[in-house]
C-alpha cells in the first residue's frame, strides 16, 4: 500500500516534468526547462524510494536519494530566482 504512494509521487513528478519540457519547447522560457529538470530529479527521488523499500530492503539508499532530491530543488531554485526576478 505504502509503495503505491511512492509510485504515485514518481508518476506525478514525471508527468510534471514532461508537461514542463513540452512547455519549454513551445515557449522557450528557460524557467520551464529548469523546473522540468527539477521534477525529473524529484521523480528519480521517488523512484529511488520505491526501489529502496521494495527491491533492496537491506541496503539504504537514503544518501543517494537525498542528494538527488537536493540537486532537484537547487536546480528549481536557481531557475526560479535567476529567470523570474
Amino acid at each position, binding site marked *: 500500500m*505504502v509503495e503505491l*504512494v511512492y509510485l*504515485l*509521487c514518481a508518476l*506525478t*513528478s514525471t*508527468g*510534471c516534468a514532461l*508537461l514542463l519540457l513540452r512547455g519549454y519547447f513551445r515557449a522557450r522560457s528557460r524557467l520551464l526547462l529548469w523546473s522540468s529538470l527539477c521534477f525529473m530529479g524529484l521523480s528519480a527521488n521517488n523512484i529511488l*524510494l520505491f526501489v*529502496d*523499500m521494495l527491491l533492496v530492503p537491506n541496503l*539504504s539508499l*537514503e*544518501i543517494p*536519494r*537525498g*542528494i538527488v*532530491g*537536493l540537486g532537484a*530543488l*537547487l536546480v*528549481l*531554485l536557481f531557475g*526560479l*530566482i535567476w529567470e*523570474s526576478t
Partner: protein
Amino acid sequence: MSSDALVFFLRGALALGAAVAGLVFFRFWKRTRDRFFVFFALAFWLLSINWLALGLLAFPTETRHQVFVLRLVAFVLIIVAVVDKNRRA
C-alpha cells in the same frame, strides 16, 4: 562526516530548499492571482515539513515512517493544481 550526519544534513537542506521554493510559488500567486500557485506553494511547504520532521524526529530511515503521508498529500496537491488548471482552461 559520518553517514548519519550526512543524512540529517541532507534532510535539513531539503527542508530549507523546499520551503524557499514554496515561497517563490506563493509570490507567483501574488503576482498572477492564479490559484494554481497556491496549490504548488502548499505542496512544497508540505514537502519541507516532511523533510523537517524526518530530520528533527531523527528517524534512522525514511522508508519506514508515517511522515510519508505528508509527501503523499503534497503530490496530491500538485495533481489537484493541474486538474484545476485544466478545468479552468
